[in-house]
């Protein structure tokens, strides 16, 4: 270990995490890879399209964002297979990555995730990266169908109705799932902080300790 980390153990004896930094403008030749957004081959009978736009606080689409998804298969099984970076066309690895196109739209070919336990609301984990976004953001896209499961979901039920809606995908007539991501402003997507993530943006004011605030909702908007 370098002394940077050893000398700064937090009060809970956790090592202090390395800070994030923006993905910047030039990831486009490095992080995307062949079939990165195709968890299944397009046209596969089980496949759906998951797509949407990423917009900023002025409602403009971002041409330089990158989205990652990570999800169970349609039976709710969490994939453990390798091979996300070199697709063999058969193995469902559960992970996908794609840059938005010049119109700010991202597209994945995947499956509807199944419930990981009976009665659980199925969702896809989403990570958002962009130039101008200093640290990535986590969110979820829930399937809209199972109203009872959605009503029982701990995260969704902790949100005000208008905020809750930002996490539920919209099913389109052709079976596609639309999920628009709004980084700021009207209809701002709910982004998540997880325990032990010491993020200045999850405090009510800059510098305030985020410890012990789980479940307090977004009352402390900056």
């Amino acid at each position, binding site marked *: 270990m370098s002394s940077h980390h050893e000398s700064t153990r937090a009060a809970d004896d956790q090592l202090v995490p390395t800070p994030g930094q923006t993905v910047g403008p030039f990831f486009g030749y490095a992080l995307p890879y062949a079939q990165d957004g195709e968890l299944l081959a397009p046209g596969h009978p089980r496949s759906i399209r998951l797509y949407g736009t990423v917009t900023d606080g002025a409602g403009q689409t971002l041409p330089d964002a990158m989205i990652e998804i990570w999800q169970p298969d349609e039976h709710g099984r969490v994939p453990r297979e390798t091979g996300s970076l070199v697709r063999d066309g058969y193995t469902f690895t559960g992970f996908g990555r794609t840059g938005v196109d010049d119109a700010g739209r991202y597209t994945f070919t995947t499956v509807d995730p199944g419930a*990981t336990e009976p009665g659980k609301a199925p969702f896809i984990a989403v990570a958002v990266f962009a130039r101008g976004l200093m640290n990535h953001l986590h969110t979820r896209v829930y399937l809209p169908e199972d109203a009872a499961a959605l009503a029982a979901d701990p995260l969704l039920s902790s949100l005000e109705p208008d905020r809750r809606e930002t996490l539920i995908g919209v099913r389109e007539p052709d079976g596609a799932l639309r999920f628009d991501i709004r980084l700021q402003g009207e209809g701002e997507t709910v982004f998540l902080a997880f325990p032990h993530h010491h993020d200045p943006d999850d405090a009510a004011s*800059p510098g305030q300790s985020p410890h012990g605030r789980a479940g307090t909702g977004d009352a402390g908007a900056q």
Partner: protein
Amino acid sequence: MDVQPPPLDPAATMESQQTLSAEIAAIHQQHRDAVAAGETPETQPRRNFPPYRSSLLRHPTKSLHHADPETIELVSPAFGERDVHPLEADLTIQHDGEPIGERIVVAGRVLDGDGRPVRNQLVEVWQANAAGRYVHKRDQHPAPIDPNFTGVGRVITGDDGEYRFTTIKPAPYPWKNHHNAWRPAHIHFSLFGTEFTQRIVTQMYFPGDPLFDLDPIYQSITDQRARDRLVAVYDHSLTSHEWATGYRWDIVLTGGDRTWTEDDAEAEEH
């Protein structure tokens, strides 16, 4: 005498480094004052950091919503030898010839918050060449592209969480945040942990860079000790005789508080 001002140089109408540096200093002073008043020092960058002008419309204005990670979030995608060839860790052998520049080794360990090694996980890097130019088509900086250097590498961490890249030391390069803005030399890193919640994309810097104080991206981390965690250390034990100098940089991932189970131990075997 009626002297007309010279035609405005468009670049000269942009904000000065002095303006940006003053904004950065004010934010850092606020942070120091908060710490002096008993607040916990910040350890991550601010997404809302106005000196980084591109952040103005791209940061959430509502607080992040606290959530307990569930199911899929408590594991990470699996990567392995199907995904990454061992030669991808050497960025100097991807073309017919040798890239121009200072050959370096960058190595370290990836750990979780408890200090456990993060094994068998994906580390991706990308960077400018020795002239400060990216291969990316949007990089129009008039510095030469090196036909022998793409600047992209990948590696899977070893049993001790270790990674190691051989590459060329990148140069600083200009960007358009403000007038005469230059980024310190850096290598972009992208990592996965044992949980998807531990995902991180960041940048590694080189010790003693004179551009640190001027850079709104680096300075978006308001605490000096936290900023230091992005700076590699020169390590002569990584330097090899008549071949390459060595830099060491360890990475600690956030979170990782999932209970360690027998299943995990078993999964490690595969």
